[in-house]
């Protein structure tokens, strides 16, 4: 039975042709599979990094100064991207730049709200020359201001401040 099967050459070309076709098809599509697998792994890493780089923000103030304290509570370094200053009437922002403001894992960054300067337009100026960094904004008295910071990996943290009028 087996000998007869091996001797019979009829239909061999179809079998060889189909095998070659499948090999060529596999060669073509394996490139796409490999690329997709690589990209998926890369993006999994991005998402994992985001989950492992959480931040927290608090506001502290006394009679003369206001500070924002950004805590890196994750295991990775964090780069701040933008600070939002939100009131009922306006949504302002201060850009930190892309690679200028790292907060190391477990560390914190202080941002001073320079309440002597009134912002113009949507973008608030940030001064990087001083330490801590100064954001040129004057919070309105009596209204609640929400500060929200967004990192390069799109993690956010927020806190609010309501300055009471002097008695």
């Amino acid at each position, binding site marked *: 039975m087996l000998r007869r099967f091996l001797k019979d050459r009829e239909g061999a070309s179809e079998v060889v042709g189909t095998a070659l076709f499948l090999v060529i098809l596999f060669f073509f599509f394996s490139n796409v599979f490999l690329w997709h697998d690589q990209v998926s792994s890369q993006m999994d890493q991005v998402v994992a990094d*985001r989950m492992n780089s959480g931040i927290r923000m608090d506001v502290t103030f006394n009679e003369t100064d206001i500070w924002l304290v950004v805590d890196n509570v994750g295991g990775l370094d964090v780069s701040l991207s*933008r600070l939002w200053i939100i009131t009922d009437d306006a949504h302002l922002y201060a*850009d930190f730049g892309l690679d200028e403001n790292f907060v190391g894992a477990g560390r914190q960054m202080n941002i001073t709200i320079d309440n002597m300067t009134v912002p113009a337009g949507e973008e608030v100026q940030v001064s990087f020359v001083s330490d801590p960094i100064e954001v040129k904004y004057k919070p309105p008295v009596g209204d609640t201001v929400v500060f929200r910071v967004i990192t*390069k990996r*799109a993690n956010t943290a927020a806190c609010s401040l309501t300055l009471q009028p002097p008695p």
Partner: protein
Amino acid sequence: MRKFRGNNRAISPVLGTVILVLIVVIGMSAVFSFFVGYVSDYQSGRGSAVMELLEIEDVFFDSDDTGSVDVWLYNYGEIEVELDSVFVNGWPVDFVFYPASARELGDFDGNGAVDILTFSHAKYRLSLVVDWDDEDAKPVHVLRFVTKRGTIVEREYFTPGV
């Protein structure tokens, strides 16, 4: 030599083989170039959707203009993003891009629409179907952004005063 040239036998099998090889080579080249183009389109198009990461970083309901909403998007993915359509509470709405709101802009596919580059912020103004302070307006606005590659980002936002 003269005998070789004078002998016309077996011309047709040789010619047939040459033509067959030619057809196979041309056919496979066509298939290969089609496949390369297909893969290239897939990789730069829908296949790259997995590399898109978009965040709605802020939404502003301006009381001076209740017929629209300002939205800031942040691209933190590995590839530039182009918006295809925006929906508010399920309704498709018109949207306008603010050129000054992004640090870096580009038009990679040359179709005239703006691509938001990676780690770039961009502001859009959405025109609402119903004013957000209208009596018929819902207190919660569901914003849905759809990119050209098919990525969907959806969030809910309360209107002011709710």
